[in-house]
């Protein structure tokens, strides 16, 4: 087995007296697609914040590409090859869509001049924003803001991309196109950590799945096996059991 690209070991995070993450560990091989599910408030976004360096963990370590990055900032991790999209979009509202991607291409991707604009443009095309390049990002609607999150993450030319609920809010008809986009990334050898509530989109892409609840790893492994786990069904899918969720039926 290849050396892991990302290794999260025993990570803990507290906000005051509230334990948000407790002894979370997982690792990711280069090019692997990894999914994270869990109920609201399970600590999924906090986990991504610890992985990409927006938050420092209180315990444990994060190793990226063989280097301990636990104390490194988000910018350094991004330049090392870690792209990130936010669940609640954070566009650079006063800049155009192209300029947003250009920031990521210039600083995350390390490009300048023509190479930077080409890289930014490629990311916009992939994310489906090519026809809105000159639009101020602050005037985009929610779906396009989500696309911009993806475009910015891609423009950093990551080896690992962290996607936080990019399918949330998409219509049923739009999900397949997104699944194809993420599959395309994986096909190019980009490793993906994807948090998503749209479970069927996730299962269509990822090869391993982690279920997080109350900041702890409840189950990790083959997606179908994890979703069939009685504990996972109880805490996460409990309300839909026996319902018409295609994933539950498929298992």
């Amino acid at each position, binding site marked *: 087995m290849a050396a892991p690209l990302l290794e999260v070991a025993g990570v803990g995070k507290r906000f005051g007296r509230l334990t948000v993450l407790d002894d979370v560990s997982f690792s990711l091989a280069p090019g692997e697609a990894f999914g994270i599910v869990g109920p609201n408030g399970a600590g999924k976004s906090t986990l991504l914040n610890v992985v*990409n*360096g*927006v938050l420092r963990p209180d315990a444990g370590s994060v190793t990226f590409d063989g280097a301990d990055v636990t104390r490194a*900032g*988000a*910018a350094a991790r*991004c*330049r090392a090859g870690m792209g*990130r999209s*936010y669940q609640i979009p*954070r*566009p*650079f*509202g*006063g*800049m*155009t869509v*192209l*300029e*947003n991607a*250009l*920031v*990521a291409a*210039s*600083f*995350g*991707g*390390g490009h*300048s001049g023509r190479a930077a*604009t*080409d890289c930014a*443009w*490629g990311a916009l*095309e*992939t*994310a*489906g*924003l*090519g*026809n809105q*390049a*000159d639009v101020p990002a602050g005037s985009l*609607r929610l*779906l396009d803001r989500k*696309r911009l999150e993806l475009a*910015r993450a891609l*423009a*950093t030319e990551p080896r690992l991309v962290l996607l936080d609920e990019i399918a949330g809010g*998409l*219509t049923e*008809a*739009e999900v*397949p*196109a*997104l699944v*194809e*986009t993420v599959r395309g990334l994986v096909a190019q050898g980009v490793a993906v950590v994807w948090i998503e509530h749209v479970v069927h989109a996730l299962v269509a892409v990822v090869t391993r799945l982690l279920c997080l609840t109350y900041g702890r790893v409840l189950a990790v492994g083959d997606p179908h096996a994890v979703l069939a786990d009685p504990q996972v069904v109880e805490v996460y899918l409990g309300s839909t059991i026996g319902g018409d969720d295609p994933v539950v039926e498929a298992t």
Partner: protein
Amino acid sequence: MTGVQPAAGATRPAGTTPPKVRRGGRSARIGAVAMVAVVAVLVYLPFMSSRGTQIDLVGLFSLVVLGTMWNLLAGYGGMISIGQQAFIGIGGYGLVYLATNLGLDPFLAVPVAAVVCGLVAWPTSYLAFRLTGGYFAIGTWVIAEVVRLLVTQVDAVGAGSGASLTAFSGLDPVFRIAYVYWMSLTIAVVVVLGVYLLMRSRTGLALTAIRDDPTAAASSGVAVDRAKRLVYVVAAAGCGLAGAMIVANTLRVQPGSIFSVDYSAMMIFIVVIGGIGTIEGPLVGAIVFYLLQDTLAELGNWYLVVVGVVAVVITLVAPKGLWGLTRGRVELFPVGYRVGPRG
């Protein structure tokens, strides 16, 4: 849900040729020509105007520098400072100390004083950057007060009563005023042009991103603290130049006036009235403030009331400042990136 577009990725063929990116249009070229003409007239001005006009215009140039620096801090760096008078004061006192006490040529002392401001600002930033938002603003004011109190302890520069700039005494006033005028004009042009070039550079792109969302900027690979520190140091040096200009113009420095928080109020007025986050805005704001100051001088205290009313009206009518009324259609200093027409 209304108006949901299909994901464009499904309909658009991947890998279309990247378009050319434009960084300025016709208005920028016309603007550049106009700017050169204005500067040329201003350079020639001392040969055909009174000394009083020149002294007044040095005041305008210092407002341009101050507004441009505050805009760099707040409009691009996202740092609302109300303590830039610390560096205005160090610049002014620096000029007096270097020229009078150390015997340095005053025209050389001005840039040296600015460098001193930058050198002071660099370690200060580690203190100030521990605070964010409103706390940062108050922190900068506290730092400015500390600097003022420290300066009033120094007998070599007149302690609490201030000092005079005597280094020009050998110079005929006609020449002195013209030289100070040209120096101030040069500083104003260099500062505005310097900020323009900075904002067109990669650093400018990083700063604009930081202004809009520092967390997302960091996650996109921008070294946020380093860029902000650079801006803080540059803005300190720029305010130091303005302080030195003011003292070279009035020949007198006093702790109460050069470290006055009024300077921060002026800078905020200039930038907000003119248009924050644009290079043109502070120029417009400085001219408006200068004209108000000039025409309302005899009103006494009512002058501040009128300035306040003007500020309220303009923020209501033009929330993005006077330059914001152009809605981005006119860019004299284009810093953005636009996709050109596709061939």
